[in-house]
């Protein structure tokens, strides 16, 4: 479309993009910069106001700008200053991570995962060759065995315990990653099973089941309210315990009071919210597989399982991989489910994050309850960096940006 050219065209484009650019600058870019700055100060509920003479406060804090100066609340304690030392908030969060013992533990823990990386690399290499010297299944099995072996050598559990003693950041991030590692594969498996069943031929009532099984996706739009409903299933007199009592005569426990069962409860509820996404994505991918492939496999006498491993899974891979990556990032940012069900608890010790205090729950609690804005923003900066790297990587893997070239 090149009716206009030169200056007029450039001006038009700019004019149409301007509202978006302004909105992004004011509500995304600027808050990020201010956020980074606050993370170097001791701003908290007792020191909410700026001292415009200190550091960059006068430039960055909007309450120091001439236009808004009269909006600054006065008489609320001392103004905030630069943290002393400057990286205090980061230091508080990371704790004793930078001692020799902790760093060695960190290296030990990371070493245990090296075989998996090597396996991944080998598989990529061999996938280009027509006759790989060893099948990928075996590579993975050997890698996992090596991982366990390495874990035993370096005393994985012990190193992990040392790391968990360091500070809130490692604890919270580790728990969140554990949550992602449990939740995403389980969700994928359930989504896959349901999609396979729904995709099978002449299934009476398919539409009914599809609608019913889709319900949790809709409910996830109001996740926090639905999670409160879920919370009541796990209470002492909740549905689960009543069922256990009636069916098996087992006296249930208070699920949310123990770290492991509280974690399990959140995983279960979050699976409920998120399996329809996988179900729908996989179903879409399944329907694009030509049936001739299965007919040919039938002729060759391939079993159902062989067909699944050799036709279905490889062919849905391109569509499902982006879904897995996106879901992992979303699961990392899960907030509503954990906040409504346990509120981050049960608390294991004073001044320590609770057993289900995942990244976003921790951030929210520091902002809303503790109101230590300096620490909250320092935490946000570190998560920002992690998420930014993960996002760049995911954009490459998922090729979501291919729409940009269209």
């Amino acid at each position, binding site marked *: *479309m090149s009716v*206009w050219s030169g200056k007029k*065209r450039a001006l*038009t484009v700019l004019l149409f993009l301007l*509202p978006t650019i302004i*909105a*992004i600058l*004011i*509500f995304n870019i600027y*808050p*990020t910069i*201010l956020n980074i700055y606050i993370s170097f100060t001791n701003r908290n509920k007792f020191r909410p106001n700026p001292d415009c003479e200190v550091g960059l406060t006068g430039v960055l804090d*909007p309450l120091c*700008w001439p236009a*808004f100066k009269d*909006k600054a*609340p006065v008489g609320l304690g001392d103004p905030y200053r630069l943290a002393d030392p400057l990286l205090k908030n980061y230091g508080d969060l990371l704790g004793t991570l930078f001692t020799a013992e902790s760093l060695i533990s960190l290296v030990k823990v990371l070493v245990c995962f090296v075989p998996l990386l090597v396996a991944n690399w080998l598989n990529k290499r061999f996938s280009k060759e027509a006759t790989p010297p060893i099948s990928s299944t075996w590579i993975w099995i050997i890698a996992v065995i090596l991982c366990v072996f390495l874990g035993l050598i370096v005393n994985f559990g012990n190193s992990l315990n040392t790391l968990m003693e360091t500070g809130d950041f490692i604890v919270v991030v580790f728990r969140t990653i554990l949550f992602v590692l449990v939740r995403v594969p389980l969700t994928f498996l359930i989504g896959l*099973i349901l999609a396979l*069943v729904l995709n*099978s*031929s*002449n*299934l009476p009532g398919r539409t009914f*089941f599809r609608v*019913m*099984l889709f*319900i*949790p996706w*809709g409910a996830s739009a*109001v996740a926090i309210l*639905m999670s*409160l*409903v879920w919370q*009541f299933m796990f*209470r002492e007199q*909740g*549905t689960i315990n*009543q069922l256990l009592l009636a069916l098996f005569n087992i006296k249930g426990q208070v699920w949310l009071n123990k770290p492991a069962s509280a974690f399990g409860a959140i995983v279960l509820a979050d699976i*409920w919210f998120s399996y329809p*996404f996988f179900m729908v*994505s996989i179903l879409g991918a399944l329907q694009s597989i030509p*049936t001739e492939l299965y*007919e040919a496999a039938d002729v060759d006498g391939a079993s159902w399982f062989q067909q699944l491993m050799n036709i279905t899974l490889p062919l849905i891979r391109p569509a499902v991989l982006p879904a897995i990556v*996106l879901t992992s990032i*979303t699961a990392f*940012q899960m*907030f*509503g489910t954990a906040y*409504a069900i346990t509120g981050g608890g049960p608390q294991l010790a004073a001044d320590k994050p609770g057993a289900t205090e995942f990244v*976003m729950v921790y951030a929210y609690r520091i902002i809303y309850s503790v109101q230590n804005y300096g620490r909250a*923003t320092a935490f*946000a900066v570190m*998560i920002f960096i992690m998420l*930014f790297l993960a996002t*760049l990587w995911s954009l490459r893997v998922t090729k*979501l*940006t291919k*729409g*940009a*070239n269209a």
Partner: protein
Amino acid sequence: MNRKPRTGVRILQYAILILFTIFAFYPVWFAILASGRLGDRLYTLNLLGMFIPTEWTFENYRVMLFERPFLTWFKNSLLVASAATVFSLIVATSAAFALSRFRFRGRETFLVLLLALSTFPGILSLVAIAQLLTAIGLYGKHVGLVLAYTTGSLVFCTWNLKGYFDTIPIDLEEAAMLDGCGPVEAFTLIALPLARPALAVTAILAFMGSWGDFIFASVLVPAPDRLKLAVPALYSLANSISVPWGYFAAGAVFVIIPTLLVYLALQRYFESGLTLGGVKG
């Protein structure tokens, strides 16, 4: 595929489907049952009552509608989410038009940057946004929340609309331009009416993003009661010990059921993957 599965397989398939249908539906059903139970009898120890309505009263609904400010909360949520949706859609349509119909330097970078920004959860810049709103005098007001939500759904709307505009052939507009329309006129007269379904779906999804939000609403408009939005208000209702849980259930049903119906109506859009590019946390 006309392969008729064996009976054993069929039974297994239906067992799986029925099991998961119960799993999918039960929590919603539980909320409905609890909303009809008398408030102070949150748990019925009668197991049957956990699954079918052994008792039913509209008392909770009456209290929520007439004795609590639920309708005010509901109205607040509707207003804020609608306003944010309208603003977001106007801004996003304008950007999506430029990104879809013009080729200029930095276009791809801009699109990728937008996508990268949208993956950051808002909670991480919440402190800074609260401070900004305090400075411009909008903290604790609905307008501030509208601004936050507008930018929150902006990227999603832009990408979604741009993707759809790309599928509308440009030939139609070029024909109009031969007849003397400018590019903008051609776009608004021809492409926009064609994009009406996509605009509607995008609007509804953007609306839902603001409608179900808890984090921004609870921090940016913490008080007073009459200004609260439905979701955070119901959340604090459920967490106050003195209030019967049935009240919360009745309010939650009012919020959850319409949301479910909207999503079920949009199911085929999700299944066609139209919105995959804009999956939100």
